[in-house]
């Protein structure tokens, strides 16, 4: 296969600035040279390519759309989206690492942290010297995080945390975990540092999806943290939801990257693979799959681009993000399944990558609000009638 050039059926490229294109191309080259050669091994062995973390930091990919003042790159939200697209063209697990570090953990500190917390953590996290995670989901509270049972009680020295978080990306790697817990029934955010007594991350095993990513349970048993580790501006469920909006925005772009990779591989395969003395790409049923993929990817690109410009102009709403996350992940998963089919038996092998995308996208469909939860959010918004209660 030749150099990955993406798919651009509607000259979407013309909608990007020169800076955005340079950013995309730099990350694209990095993914091709540094992620692709080893990603199947990491997926197979269930490991995150930790050696890439400092390199990702040097490139400036962590919290890339946060301000320079905190050591971040300060790129546009569209450039940030293109970074996510390129990373997920490599692997959803790598993109998740960067999303959680930037979109969730750094964003949480940036939005709700004190000056001191921001100065201490953001530059180090931007460089990849410190890793963050975001603990919202609990074993018994996923789609409904407002019912969480993890709680924080005031002590003379600080806060005492008790409870458990589950499915936490980067949980075992994190130097700092943003843990959401209730104080007298109201959700607040806390910074729990690695090695704090009473805090135990446990890696979750047996995943068939997002294998090149650490997913862990966080156990908090009489875990006492200093008073200054409260995120002072966090207040209520809306605080973690704001972080989720930032990360979902990146997912809406990232999913397109996975879909583009599936399309690229399908197109190449359809032209090369000969059955019945003809390239399979000449059969109308195969063409229909390619046409579906190209059309849905193009629609997804336009949706993401518009969403990015709205975010840059400060006009984006969280329901618009729900629409893009819901749509783009769904079509990416469809593209991956079609690619898997189109590649025949080769489609189930690691060598051809598409089944890895397909398995990964099952997670992406579920996390950061499941597909159906986004349907409820949009349904509520369109009708003005709550679909939750």
């Amino acid at each position, binding site marked *: 296969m030749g150099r990955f050039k993406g798919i651009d059926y509607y000259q979407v490229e013309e909608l990007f600035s020169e800076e955005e294109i340079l950013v995309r191309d*730099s990350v694209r*080259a990095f993914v091709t040279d540094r992620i692709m050669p080893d990603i199947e091994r990491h997926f197979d062995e269930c490991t995150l390519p930790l050696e890439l973390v400092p390199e990702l930091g040097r490139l400036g990919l962590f919290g890339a759309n946060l301000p320079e003042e905190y050591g971040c790159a300060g790129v546009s939200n569209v450039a940030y989206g293109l970074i996510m697209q390129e990373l997920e063209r490599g692997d959803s697990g790598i993109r998740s690492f960067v999303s959680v570090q930037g979109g969730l953990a750094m964003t949480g500190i940036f939005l709700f942290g004190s000056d001191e917390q921001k100065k201490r953590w953001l530059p180090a996290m931007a460089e990849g010297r410190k890793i963050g995670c975001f603990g919202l989901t609990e074993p018994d509270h996923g789609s409904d995080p407002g019912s969480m049972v993890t709680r924080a009680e005031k002590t003379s020295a600080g806060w005492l945390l008790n409870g458990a978080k589950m499915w936490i990306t980067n949980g075992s790697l994190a130097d700092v975990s943003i843990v959401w817990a209730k104080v007298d029934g109201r959700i607040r955010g806390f910074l729990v540092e690695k090695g704090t007594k009473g805090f135990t991350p446990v890696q979750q095993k047996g995943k068939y999806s997002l294998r090149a990513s650490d997913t862990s349970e966080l156990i908090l048993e009489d875990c006492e943290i200093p008073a200054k580790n409260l995120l002072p501006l966090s207040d209520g469920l809306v605080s973690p939801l704001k972080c989720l909006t930032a990360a979902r925005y990146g997912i809406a772009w990232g999913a397109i990257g996975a879909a583009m990779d599936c399309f690229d591989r399908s197109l190449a395969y359809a032209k090369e693979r000969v059955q019945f003395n003809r390239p399979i790409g000449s059969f109308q049923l195969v063409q229909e799959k390619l046409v579906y993929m190209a059309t849905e990817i193009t629609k997804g690109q336009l949706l993401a681009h518009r969403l990015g410009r709205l975010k840059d102009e400060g006009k984006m709403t969280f329901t618009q993000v729900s629409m893009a996350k819901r749509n783009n992940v769904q079509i990416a998963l469809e593209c991956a399944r079609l690619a898997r089919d189109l590649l025949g038996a080769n489609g189930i092998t690691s060598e051809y990558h598409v089944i890895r995308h397909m398995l990964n996208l099952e997670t992406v469909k579920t996390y950061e609000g499941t597909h159906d939860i986004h349907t409820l959010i949009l349904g509520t918004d369109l009708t003005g009638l709550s679909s939750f209660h």
Partner: protein
Amino acid sequence: MKTIVFIKEVPETPDGVKISDSGQLAVDGDRAFLTDPIDPYSVETALKIREEKGGEVIVVSAGSTRAEKFLKEALAMGADEAVLLSGAEIEGGDPTATARALAAAVRKSGDFDLLVVGDRAADDNSAVVGPVLGQLLDIPVLTYVSEVREVDADTIRVVRTLEKGREVVESSLPAVVSVVKGIHEPRYPSLLGIRKASKREVPKWTAADLGEDPARLGAAGSPTRMRSLAPPPAPSGVEMIEGEVEEAAKTLVAKIIDRKVL
């Protein structure tokens, strides 16, 4: 230490390039061009020297305005300045005519210590620009450099990788160095670097700015001309041996012996 690096765009093969029936190059749109894959190595070599010795790195390209993007990539990697030599009089030059434009740009930019080029371009494979530059400027040329051992104010010591071995060579400065891939792993442009670079204007110098006689530049000033272009011959002589494994293996062995492969 002032280092000038020369880079150029090349058409991407095989996707972007077609050869027409009349033997001409047909390139499929702007996106089919890349910076020559050797270029990041040349830029990295200069940046490494600057990290150690201080000074500045200037990147120069002669050709179409498309190359501006690649100059910005070099700025984003960390180069200090970039210049594009362009205009109808400069474009379409063969390696000699191009080297004349580059030499004129070097003279225009004043004193310098080191010129860095890739060992050969991915498109024409000529490996001529570096040596001609050296000749035009009357300075030593070190080709196929795989390592820069030492640089000081007026000498450079490098390793040249040749077919039959490695050669350690010392030369006075200023000099031209042509580097091979693998001399250093090139860095990726960082986002901050890209942000700074994309705000920069890349100055464009025409033949008139260079004070060069247009008759010696570009297509008009090229002593060589490409008469025709043909794709490499399709691989031939592939033979599928049919039949049962045992039989097929015997046939294969017979053929290997017959053709004196072993």
